[in-house]
């Protein structure tokens, strides 16, 4: 089962094809769209470590996502881009640690509610009390992009390659994490935490580690989004951001490496297309989401797995 399966190869091919599109076409829209998918994809890949692997529904990932954006916006002009990006990851880790100190005291629904409440606290702080640093509801415009190797990253095409590099590195690290003993242990904790504890795992510590790693992914992707848009605002910290990443992950298929990326792709493409016709695109997206949970409970990845099995059966 740990060997590469047909459906995983399919998914990797789809994601790779997606990244090739902007290289083939001159269209700015597709470039923008794929850039967004890479950024949110990285966020969703990190979110699934906690949601799909450890089985904890966090409703507070917006906090780490936004913290990454603010960290980059505030620090990049002082310390340079790459150190600021690392600081964004660290901001995600530290905030995840703080959230976990409170939220991990409880489990299940109460964990979700506590993460939600704490993230909303971050949202309120950023939009009011910390106005001096965060610019309040106006946010911070003019978030920089990297300046290195003499490449002009303010060119969207060049920045797209930068995003792709970070995305590929992030996914590769996650792929290793998922098949490592740490990944197995998380799956064991999800299946039966009491048993996992009895074979010597400090379950709370494991959950906390996963939450912090997931926070690092949220921090980096938040920073990249701020860079992509040249702008960071409290909206990134809003609970609906946590909801979006959850919907994306469920659409794509939780518990799989690349499923969440496909979920992000479907979400962003639908949003892009639907919003051209109607302002009520979120409602239509909601209907799509409801239909998917009924007919595709394992998301797009589940559909691929089904197709893979049919393919295998036919070749026999």
């Amino acid at each position, binding site marked *: *089962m*740990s*060997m590469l399966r047909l459906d995983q190869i399919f998914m990797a091919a789809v994601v790779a094809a997606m990244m090739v599109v902007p290289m083939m076409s001159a269209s700015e829209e597709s470039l923008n769209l794929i850039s967004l998918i890479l950024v949110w994809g990285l966020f969703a890949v990190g979110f699934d470590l906690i949601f799909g692997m450890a089985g904890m529904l966090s409703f507070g990932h917006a906090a780490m996502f936004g913290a990454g954006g603010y960290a980059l916006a505030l620090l990049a002009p002082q310390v340079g881009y790459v150190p600021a990006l690392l600081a964004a990851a660290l901001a995600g880790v530290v905030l995840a640690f703080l959230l976990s100190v409170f939220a991990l005291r409880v489990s299940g629904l109460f964990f979700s509610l506590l993460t939600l409440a704490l993230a909303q606290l971050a949202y309120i702080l950023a939009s009011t009390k910390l106005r001096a640093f965060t610019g309040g509801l106006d946010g911070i415009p003019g978030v920089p992009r990297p300046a290195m190797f003499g490449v002009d990253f303010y060119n969207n095409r060049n920045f797209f390659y930068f995003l792709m590099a970070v995305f590929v590195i992030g996914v590769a690290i996650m792929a290793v994490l998922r098949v490592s*003993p740490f990944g*197995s*242990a998380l*799956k*064991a904790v*999800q*299946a*039966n935490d*009491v*048993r*996992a*504890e*009895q*074979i*010597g*795992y*400090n*379950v709370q510590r494991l959950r906390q580690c996963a939450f912090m790693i997931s926070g690092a992914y949220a921090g980096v992707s938040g920073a990249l989004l701020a860079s992509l848009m040249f702008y960071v605002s409290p909206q990134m910290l809003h609970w609906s951001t946590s909801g979006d990443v959850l919907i994306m992950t469920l659409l794509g298929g939780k518990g799989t490496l690349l499923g969440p990326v496909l979920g992000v792709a479907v979400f962003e493409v639908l949003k892009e297309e639907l919003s051209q016709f109607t302002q009520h695109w979120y409602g239509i997206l909601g209907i799509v989401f409801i239909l998917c949970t009924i007919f595709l409970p394992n998301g797009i990845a589940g559909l691929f797995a089904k197709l893979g099995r049919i393919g295998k059966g036919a070749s026999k």
Partner: protein
Amino acid sequence: MSALALQDCDVFYGKAQALHHVSIDVAAGEVVSLIGRNGAGKSTLLKAAIGLNAIHSGRRMMGDRDITALKPYELGRLGLAFVPENRRIFPNLTVEENLKIATVMGRKGPWSLERIYQLFPRLLERATQGGDTLSGGEQQMLAVGRGLLTNPEVLLLDEPTEGLAPLIVEHLTEAIRTINAEGVAILLVEQNLKVPLKLARRQFVIDNGRVVWSGTTAELQADRARIESLISV
């Protein structure tokens, strides 16, 4: 010296007292069984031994070290391995992953993946299958293997042969003997005398949350009629 001992333990569920001044001990390398009918308190006692039930008064000891206050994962790392009655295989992991994750936090010792596959060749055949695709007997082998891979001092087996075919029971009984021959002490919990009489040197009988009889296997044979009545439903 005892590898594991409960001394004068009281355990409560809410206000109801489930165990009354229970004392049992397992010496290093010994097989001891705990026998009792349904609801007698066997599982409650096991859970108290591995830290899942709080011990209200009394002590849990390992050698002369007091381990009453330790958490379940700390007890697991110290060398207590528990194989639960319903096996509790991780269904979302393969057979091999189920085994491997037990090696990470356990102690160093003689038990390796290869040794487990040697003991239960059936598991090697099923190594890449999902944990949820195994038969009852195979699940039991996997659960025992998982426990052993933490390289325990004491292996606690909760009704390991319940509901299994006679041939599998024989195979498991033989495996338990092999495991014990390697120096692992075993606390075997059963509802009947069949397997305990074959394997254990000493026996404890529990009823209504109290240890009502204890002695060697020979003494049990001599007093068999009374013991049978204590554990019959």
